[in-house]
């Protein structure tokens, strides 16, 4: 009975996935083993060449940069997002709606125009450098490195961490916090022993969302990272639109997918084991 209920609840979502994801994904996998053709995009001749091409230090290096940026962005979002989520979760004021709205505004505008704002702030002739120049320093290239990309992505993806985390923290009764305080816990103990374990689901969801979106980033690494911070999204974009080498692009996508799914499954399994030990449902 429960199995049937589960199926009923999951079936609309599964239907969308099967109809619009599984088949295109199958197409991507199939194209990844076809041969590239400059005028026909691909010809249906099976080959392992596309995957072979991927295993070169440059492309593997780009993969590593992608994972690195993904992890660092997730970490930054967790560190900055937790205090924000806590403040918002415990906020009773009617400004909460506005605060939430402001949080998602960077997502609403085109990344290109948003990054122009960062160019004004971090550019060589930007605000930060101008302030440094007043102190006798300045002229630093603050863009075109991993930190800049992480900053740009964190600004964009913070709500994906904060909102699920906030929902989790809201479910922790204040009485529990007060009880802990009354028993003499200091803020760090309160966080480590009470808040963190109980808000783990929010942290997990937030991390998964931030990481998944961060690794497929395109515009932010291109404009804020430059050539030194190329990510897999940039590679795929160029291959699809410029060289029309969809087979190679497809092989990159398959590698990315397999790798990320493996990471996610491991992450989810580990956290489920941890939360079960912590006594949670």
């Amino acid at each position, binding site marked *: 009975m429960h199995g049937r209920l589960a199926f009923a*609840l999951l079936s609309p979502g599964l239907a969308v996935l099967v109809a619009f994801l599984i088949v295109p994904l199958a197409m991507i996998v199939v194209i990844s083993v076809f041969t590239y053709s400059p005028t026909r995009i691909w010809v249906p001749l099976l080959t392992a060449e596309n995957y072979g091409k991927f295993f070169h230090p440059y492309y593997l290096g780009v993969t590593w940069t992608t994972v690195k940026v993904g992890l660092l962005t997730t970490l930054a979002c967790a560190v900055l997002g937790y205090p924000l989520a806590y403040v918002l979760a415990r906020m009773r004021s009617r400004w909460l709606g506005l605060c939430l709205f402001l949080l998602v505004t960077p997502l609403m505008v085109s990344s290109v125009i948003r990054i122009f704002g960062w160019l004004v702030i971090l550019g060589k002739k930007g605000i930060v450098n101008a302030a440094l120049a007043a102190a006798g320093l300045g002229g630093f290239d603050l863009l075109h490195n991993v930190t800049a990309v992480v900053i740009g992505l964190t600004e964009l993806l913070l709500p994906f961490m904060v909102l699920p985390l906030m929902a989790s923290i809201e479910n922790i009764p204040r009485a529990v916090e007060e009880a802990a305080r009354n028993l003499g816990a200091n803020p760090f103990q309160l966080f480590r022993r009470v808040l963190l374990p109980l808000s783990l689901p929010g942290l997990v969801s937030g991390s998964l969302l931030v990481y998944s979106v961060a690794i497929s980033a395109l515009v932010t690494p291109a404009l804020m990272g430059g050539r030194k911070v190329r990510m897999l999204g940039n590679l795929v974009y160029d291959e699809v639109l410029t060289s029309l080498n969809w087979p190679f692009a497809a092989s990159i996508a398959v590698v990315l997918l397999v790798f990320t799914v493996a990471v996610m*499954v491991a992450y989810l399994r580990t956290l489920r084991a941890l939360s079960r030990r912590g006594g949670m449902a």
Partner: protein
Amino acid sequence: MKILVALAVLIYLFLLAPLLIVVAVSFDPTDGFRFPPPGFSLRWYVAFFTSETFMRAFFRVSLLVALTVSVLATVIGGLAAVGLVRVLTRGRTLMETLFLTPIVVPEILLGAALFLYYSRLKISTSVAGLVAGHLLLAIPYVVRTVSAGLVGVDRSLEEAAMSLGASRAQAFWKVTLPLIRSSLLSAAIFAFIVSFSDINIALFVAGPESVTLPVHVFSQIVWQADPTIAAASTLQILLIAALLAIAQHMFRLRVAL
């Protein structure tokens, strides 16, 4: 607590600084993208409002598609989240990962694959195809957000309701659902934004009748650059804010505790 609030304010400044610059630049009377702007002019706003292309893309395509996607994704994804968290235990990790897969596939390739798929099936590119593509992107966010909220809700509350005579569905509807209101609202907002700001799927899937605002903004960047896109971005923020304020009023969704 005060330290946390101060920290929160700083973080908000970090988030909004680039956008404040964009808003400022949208009033630059020249197309020099000067910051601080040398004057004040509404010419780019006028350019936006008088451009039938931009207005149509904003109101008749992007907004409509995003609203549809938001509603559909929240319902479909919400149901899936309930199934995942409350009913399924075997194969849960597999399902959770499956529901996250769409956002891991590079969007431009997903868009290309969807285009090929639609043309093989002889479906013409239209608003429906765009909605389907955006649903694919939005559902993962909804599932993750609602799951996070659901996991924290105490099941004993539902069980208490059932022991008082309510059916399982009634207990869920009357007890649990109100408690995950803020998760559902967040999920709906995410779905809306994901659809509204999508560019890569729309690039391939949009047809003449279904060109979204981001496609026009992106086209603008490819051939020229004038602050119309700064004005468009500011308007996007204002208009969506207005929509959300109305929605919050209509559904009297107080997110406070």
